[in-house]
């Protein structure tokens, strides 16, 4: 076998390469040839093909994502924005916080445990690559129908994988979502998010600067993981006798990752690192080309020095391998010894594999021969950009015309009561303890709030009580009805959830899960979503700091609901001021903040009772959201409320049920003037929350709402052992608890 060196490639311009099998389009391959002025070598082709893939290049989504930058609100908090491994925001007292959400959808369908586990591993490496200590994880999940047999395979595996990995890393899981819907049957969504904390001066970036500086690869050895494409390259064109077995599934090693965290942080603390990049999708191809192109010079890499788990790997495969738990650091020569000593201390394999050069090329060598010689920018940043066609789906009007407000409503008090129980017991509304009890929420000793609170909250400074909160939301049903409004509702809900716990919303990360961008309907949904989200972020003053796009979540013709998952990060000056959801004190007054309209399109009620999806989602009023948030934050700071719960899917009755069960106290509710009991209980109007106010604070609180123009309605009192709607029905907490808590254990054991 002749090694396909740069020289060889120049001499054999007519050699056919399997660019199509590697996923490149004809014009893309032509561009590669044009960029290089010759045909690529096998190794170069491997790099271009993975880095120009949809996953790594964002070629279909880029033109739309630009709005997040173009429409970004002015924010003093933003320290590092879109384009790095994760965004960074200033939270005061010299602390900076980084956070991001990513998808690991497809791998989690193929192998739920490992797919989900490695999803957590990947997002945590993004956080450490910024210089931060990870302090919490979250896991927004979407599964197929709760009673579908395949969901019994996927969900328990996913939950065990997220727990198995996150628990072993010592990261408290402080939030997430679990939504069941048949549209996710063949395409479950496994999104994972992480938060990290650092001092301002510790922020690190992925760039290789300073000629002579060493490139160190450390962590797990490189194996043949996730390199199906490269194997084609190796076997069909260059060597027919290659081993055929290359695993499509990667197995995670959380213990290795824990060591990686500790040794990386120790190296940061000793100021040993000039630039750093995690190895995720596209492995070394991505890390070397991104480090080099973001730096000032070029880079030279000796591929023979990469520690291997499998000695039969070809250079193409080494470049593409997605073996987990690896990082790449750029270190000044005189600090290399110390860096390696820290790795040794933590039993982490570390090897110098290259150095920064004063040129501008990325050069990679194998057995002493040059097999890659290219401008790293062309791989990392100058990938193809598509303006994919899109159009409003032909079915959209009919869907919106199918008005949920016209569905038959409960006719009697008994029926109303029955539907409350049905709602609370439905898989999407029922308690998620079956999931969250499998996650460690206490580790690190800083968890102030975790599930089932409105947002997760961790303390980041013991002296001052400074803390951060994170909430993730997304409602695919709303987005299906109106993707522009759906994205805004997702943001509004996460924003409201953060404020409900007393934290001030600061910044946004998002994970956009969609079907195929080659479908004009899907592309329209995507365009509408990004436009809606960017507009709303501008209005609410919360910039998007980063995120992730997952496309092709589609089985045949059927795409999933457009599902933007929006994460809002908030800050709270003193976590002792946090507001929980629990109604814990008898006699406290319950107030409903905001306005309730007849809005049932996409509602939980329409799904649970009628299996219906149609009409319009709730109206969005971002100014109202902002006002509501201000009230909730002030009330928390000044001690005017003891509990708050945001109203979202399931409406008021769901929120009240959760707050009562959490606090172990009942509530007596009265239908306010101008509303009927059904609308009062089940409407999903946005911009609302329910709060528990101590009697001594009642006047102060209502005056504040009145003065600022927020509608506030007294709806009842915390009292007794039942949730009672005066004149209609009463449900004992024991019955309510059984309905709420038994559903998931009943389904999943």
């Amino acid at each position, binding site marked *: 076998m002749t090694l396909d060196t740069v020289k060889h490639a120049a001499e054999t311009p007519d050699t056919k390469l399997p660019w199509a099998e590697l996923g490149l389009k004809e014009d893309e391959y032509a561009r590669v040839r044009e960029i290089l002025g010759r045909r690529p070598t096998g190794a170069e082709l491997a790099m271009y093909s993975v880095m120009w893939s949809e996953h790594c290049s964002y070629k279909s989504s880029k033109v739309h994502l630009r709005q997040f930058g173009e429409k970004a609100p002015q924010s003093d908090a933003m320290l590092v924005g879109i384009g790095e491994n994760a965004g960074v925001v200033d939270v005061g007292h010299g602390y900076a916080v980084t956070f991001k959400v990513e998808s690991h959808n497809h791998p989690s369908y*193929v*192998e739920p445990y*490992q797919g989900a586990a490695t999803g957590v591993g990947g997002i945590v490496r993004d956080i450490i690559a910024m210089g931060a200590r990870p302090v919490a994880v979250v896991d927004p999940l979407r599964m197929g129908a709760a009673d579908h047999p395949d969901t019994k395979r996927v969900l328990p595996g996913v939950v065990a994988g997220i727990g198995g990995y996150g628990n072993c890393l010592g990261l408290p899981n402080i939030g997430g979502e679990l939504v069941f819907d048949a549209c996710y049957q063949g395409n479950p969504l496994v999104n994972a998010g992480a938060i990290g904390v650092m001092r301002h001066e510790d922020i690190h970036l992925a760039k290789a600067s300073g000629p002579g500086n060493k490139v160190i690869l450390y962590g*797990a050895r490189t*194996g*043949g*993981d996730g390199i199906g494409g490269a194997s084609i390259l190796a076997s069909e064109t260059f060597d027919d006798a290659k*081993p055929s*077995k*290359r*695993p*499509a*599934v*990667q*197995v*995670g*090693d959380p*213990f*290795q990752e824990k060591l990686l965290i500790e040794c990386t942080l120790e190296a940061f603390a000793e100021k040993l690192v000039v630039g750093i990049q995690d190895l995720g999708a596209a492995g070394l191809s991505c890390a070397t080309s991104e480090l080099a192109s973001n730096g000032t010079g070029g880079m030279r890499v000796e591929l023979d020095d990469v520690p291997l*788990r*499998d000695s039969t790997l070809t250079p193409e495969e080494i470049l593409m391998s997605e*073996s*987990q738990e690896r990082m790449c650091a750029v270190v000044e020569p005189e600090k290399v010894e110390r860096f390696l000593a820290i790795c040794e201390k933590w*039993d982490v394999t570390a090897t110098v594999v290259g150095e920064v050069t004063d040129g501008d090329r990325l050069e990679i060598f194998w057995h002493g021969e040059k097999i890659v010689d290219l401008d790293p920018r062309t791989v990392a940043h100058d990938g193809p950009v598509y303006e994919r066609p899109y159009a409003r789906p032909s079915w959209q009007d009919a869907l919106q015309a199918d008005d949920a407000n016209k569905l038959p409503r409960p006719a009697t008090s008994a029926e109303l009561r029955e539907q409350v129980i049905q709602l609370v017991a439905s898989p999407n509304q029922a308690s998620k303890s079956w999931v969250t009890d499998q996650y460690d929420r206490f580790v690190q000793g800083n968890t102030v709030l975790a599930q089932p609170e409105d947002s997760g909250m961790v303390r980041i400074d013991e002296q001052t009580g400074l803390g951060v909160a994170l909430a993730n939301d997304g409602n695919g049903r709303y987005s299906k009805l109106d993707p522009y409004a759906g994205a805004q509702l997702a943001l509004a809900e996460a924003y409201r959830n953060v404020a409900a716990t007393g934290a001030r919303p600061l910044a946004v990360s998002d994970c956009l899960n969609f079907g195929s961008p080659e479908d004009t309907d899907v592309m329209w949904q995507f365009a509408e979503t990004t436009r809606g989200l960017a507009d709303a972020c501008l209005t609410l003053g919360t910039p998007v700091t980063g995120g992730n796009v997952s496309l092709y979540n589609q089985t045949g013709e059927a795409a999933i609901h457009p599902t933007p998952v929006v994460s809002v990060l908030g800050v709270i000056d003193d976590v002792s001021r946090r507001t929980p959801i629990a109604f814990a004190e008898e006699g406290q007054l319950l107030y409903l903040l905001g306005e309730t309209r007849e809005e049932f399109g996409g509602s939980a009620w329409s799904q649970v009772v009628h299996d219906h999806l149609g009409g319009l989602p709730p109206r969005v009023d971002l100014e109202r959201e902002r006002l509501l948030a201000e009230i909730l934050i002030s009330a928390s700071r000044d001690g005017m409320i003891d509990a708050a719960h945001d109203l979202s899917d399931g409406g008021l009755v769901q929120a009240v049920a959760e707050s009562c069960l959490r606090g172990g106290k009942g509530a007596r509710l009265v239908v306010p003037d101008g509303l009927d009991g059904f609308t009062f209980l089940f409407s999903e109007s946005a911009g609302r929350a329910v709060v528990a106010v101590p009697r001594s604070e009642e006047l102060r609180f209502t005056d504040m709402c009145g003065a600022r123009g927020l509608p506030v309605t007294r709806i009842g009192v915390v009292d007794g052992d039942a949730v009672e709607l005066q004149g209609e029905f009463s449900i004992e907490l024991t019955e309510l608890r059984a309905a709420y808590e038994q559903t998931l254990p009943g389904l999943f054991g």
Partner: protein
Amino acid sequence: MARVVVDVMLKPEILDPQGQAVQRALPRLGFEGIADVRQGKRFELEVEGPVDDAALARIHEMAETFLANTVIEDFEVKVETSEGPK
């Protein structure tokens, strides 16, 4: 009653963090000369009735669809003659 054993091991190309951790610990415990360790699972099944070809075919199917995850694992079905670990 007859005993059938199903051994399930990670495929050779798949990372085996457990086996690795064991192997790395051995020299520290004073055990040299072990070049590699892989850790897998062993299932001992007590089969009612005769272990004939039909029974073995069923167990093979069970191993393939349930005991092993063939995306990442290989398996082997053996009829035990000895008594297994004591």
